[in-house]
């Protein structure tokens, strides 16, 4: 398979700092088994949010049946070569025979896990056929190659992420797909919250965490200059990690932020100046 699949066992609670009411909304959507679409820029915390929610729903109540599910979250990072086959499964050659092997989506549908399709518009159009039948009242997964029509487990929920700013128009989500989901919109947290996240994730000094959050805010003002996404919270966390491991702050920012967001020498110089100005 060419897709990047992650099977999360979620032994401990992933840290997530809520910005609004997204936790309550997601719990309500799950209770009603409404598919959820997470919209927002790269590195703003969508994946961490879904990990946190999977932990809350599948691991926080030790007595629940869901808690016994070994893999509560199946994450697929979609790309333009991802086909329906990659999601559903395929025949493998074993000796002289071919053997059917479930794909990650089929596994999630059978076992009742959360299936998270990250950056779903990157996937090929034939995947939407699967998405449609799983996200309306039918909750069915058609497996064309085996002729099976697999009803979804009652705990199964499909969650997708989508990045409207980054995707090209050719890859925009069709309304017929979009309107099957309730949408939660994410953005980068305000500097105060982002500082708290950086501090928690890296253990960096509060003052430095605050400075890194300010860098994030300022560099995002340059989104239009060849890096539509701005600098992600993830990159700021990487910077904090490097600082905690003894790398000088400006050098850490150069490695984790300046070189990461743009290859344009002028833009890099401008970001370098911002970093140099904001850091003590």
């Amino acid at each position, binding site marked *: 398979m060419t897709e990047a699949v992650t099977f999360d066992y979620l032994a401990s609670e992933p840290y997530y700092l809520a910005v609004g009411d997204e936790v309550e909304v997601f719990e309500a959507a799950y209770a009603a088994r409404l598919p959820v679409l997470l919209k927002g820029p790269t590195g703003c915390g969508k994946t961490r949010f879904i990990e946190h929610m999977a932990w809350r729903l599948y691991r926080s109540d030790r007595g629940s049946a869901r808690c016994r599910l070994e893999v509560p979250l199946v994450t697929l990072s979609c790309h*333009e070569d991802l*086909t329906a*086959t990659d999601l559903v499964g395929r025949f493998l*050659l074993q000796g002289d025979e071919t053997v059917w092997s479930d794909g990650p989506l089929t596994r999630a549908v059978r076992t009742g896990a959360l299936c998270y399709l990250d950056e779903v518009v990157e996937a090929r159009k034939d995947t939407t056929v699967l998405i449609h039948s799983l996200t309306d009242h039918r909750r069915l997964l058609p497996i064309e190659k085996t002729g099976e029509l697999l009803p979804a487990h009652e705990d199964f929920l499909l969650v997708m992420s989508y990045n409207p700013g980054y995707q090209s128009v050719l890859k925009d989500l069709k309304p017929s797909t979009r309107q099957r989901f309730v949408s939660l919109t994410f953005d980068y947290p305000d500097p105060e919250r982002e500082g708290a996240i950086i501090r928690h994730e890296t253990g960096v000094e509060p003052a430095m965490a605050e400075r890194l959050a300010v860098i994030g805010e*300022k560099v995002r003002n340059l989104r239009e200059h060849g890096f539509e996404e701005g600098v992600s919270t993830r990159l700021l966390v990487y910077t904090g990690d490097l600082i905690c491991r003894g790398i000088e702050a400006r050098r850490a920012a150069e490695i984790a932020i300046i070189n990461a967001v743009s290859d344009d020498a002028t833009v890099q110089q*401008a970001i370098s100046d911002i970093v*140099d*100005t904001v850091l003590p």
Partner: protein
Amino acid sequence: MISLGDVEDHLALFAEGISGRYYHIKPVAEFAGRRLALNPEQAALTVDTLYLPEQLDAPEQSAYRVLALQQLGHREFGSFRFELASARARIPMLAAMPLPELGMRVSDFDLFYAHFEHPGLISRLFHQAERLRVDTLLRRAYPGITRHMRRYHAYLLEQASLELADDLNSLLQLVDWLLLGADAALLETLDLTARLAPAQQILADLEQSPGDVYQSVEAACLLYALCDPLLDARQGLPPLPLDEELSGPASWMQREARLDDWRQDLEAMNSIVLDVEMLLGEEAAAADAEGLSDGELRPDDVHLNAIRRDRDTLARRVDMERSAIADALGRTRNGARSFRYDEWDYLQQRYLPRWCRLYEERLTPDYEQDLGALQAVIRRHRAEVQKPFEQIKPLGYQRVFGVADGDELDFNAVIQARQDSRAGQTPDDRVYSRRERVHRDVCAAFLVDLSASTDDAIDPPPPAQWDADDEEIANLRDPFALDADEIPVDEAPRRRIIDVQRESMLVMSAALEQLGDSYGIYGFSGYGRDCVEFFVAKEPDEPFNRDTLAAIAGMTPKRSTRMGPAIRHAVRKLIASGNALKVLLILSDGFPQDSDYGPERGEHEYGVQDTARALKEAHEKGVETFCVTVDRSGHDYLRRMCADARYLVIDEIEDLPQALSKVYQALTS
């Protein structure tokens, strides 16, 4: 010396990152305000531009960053939000003074200065205090700037020759040095006025709690009280270099900020007037029932008229203030971004560095035009334009066999693998097939000449033949002179070059959408090297939709044709697209020309040579270029301008859409 040109590009991005809005970065010499003169050695901020010295005597480039940040700091920390009423409410010393009556059309800063006998002095003191306050807040918000600020200030102090202070001017000079970080103890030994120590205490208090702009106002008032005896002691006014700060950029920026408030007030009043009019309209029947005589007004009507009068007065004031600010600070280009480009001077055989300033801005969409008619144009030309594109392989998928991953087994590969296995050889595990996307990795830029000459009719009517034997000219004013059938009717609107250019762009857009290629549509014009205009109708990553139609409809004839910088900017965009094949198609109606495109206005060779050089640069950067012109005499100069006969002269302008599609097909196949 450091040159602004060396730092301008990244300084503009730095300023945008820090402030969250775009500022043009320009040398002070480019300031075009009429009521105001800027000191060429100082920085200034206007509504959309950060003016900086063209050359800076400084130890390192970061000095420009310090100057830029200081100017941006005035906006960030509220210098221009100063209001006299708030100042008087907060500062008893000021409230105790009579309110000067200078009318509404002076800034609140000037009103504040006018409280004092010597406005020039209080202005100077206020600017010193405010500079300290903003610098202090900058060091707190952006601690990294501190070391650059110190180094630059230390360098400035090294250049200064410290002298004894025995009068007001020299005392003010000591304060300047104090603000640059000079040793206070040393300065006190130079102070013969015995005022520096108390002044330093006032400034230290301000530095301790910089707060808002009113802290600086209060500090300035205290400093003025300290300096006042020195004014009394001397004979006549000293040659204070102070008045230049009166009505300086800060005053106009405060008026600009105040104008925003007035605009909001005006909107609120408009809303009130509308509400009251609606209410009174509903009560119209009731008014009739009151039996008022003609011309008699009800009390409500009288009230409404008063509100309208106030609203109209405010509207006039807003208009006058807006034009006064534009006059003082120069024309604003809020939606534009500016770029500098070199120009090739063929006479000197060298580049003139950063010679042209190009403004990039969106075309104003024209939603008034019948967009349905524009869509009809696309339908009319679709068949003939798309025909050449049929030879181009479109975006799609193809099945690839013998791969390690795929959605289907590749049975040939499976059989081969089994054979190998049975024969005791290691089988190849690449036994799948999959469909792969076929990419056309193309980005095209269409650059449309929007010079004034595109307003010319395609086929102008032949000049009238005046002949003595002509029939008697009818008197059109005589209602009996002509039969009804003979009365001239309006002719159909004449077709202009710009109309065909616009239609060509529409038709090409529709065709390229089908093909799936990435493309941008731009127009260019301008007047003079400091004002090359580059208009964006569509960027490659934008969809073709109603807004694009309206933007193309908004392409109108403008001014001159400085082609070199426009080509260089389009090439910059194409390179940024990152596509493998980059194509630039230029549509023009004549040779390059501009008011200062060459030593003499009527001489075209300079423009032709610069354009030729820009096209050569494009080629060296991997961009395919092609010029299409509707100028039938174009062979003459295009032969010299475009390499390898990369040009086409259209004889019949209506053939432009088909010609473009053929050229595009040839360039990208």
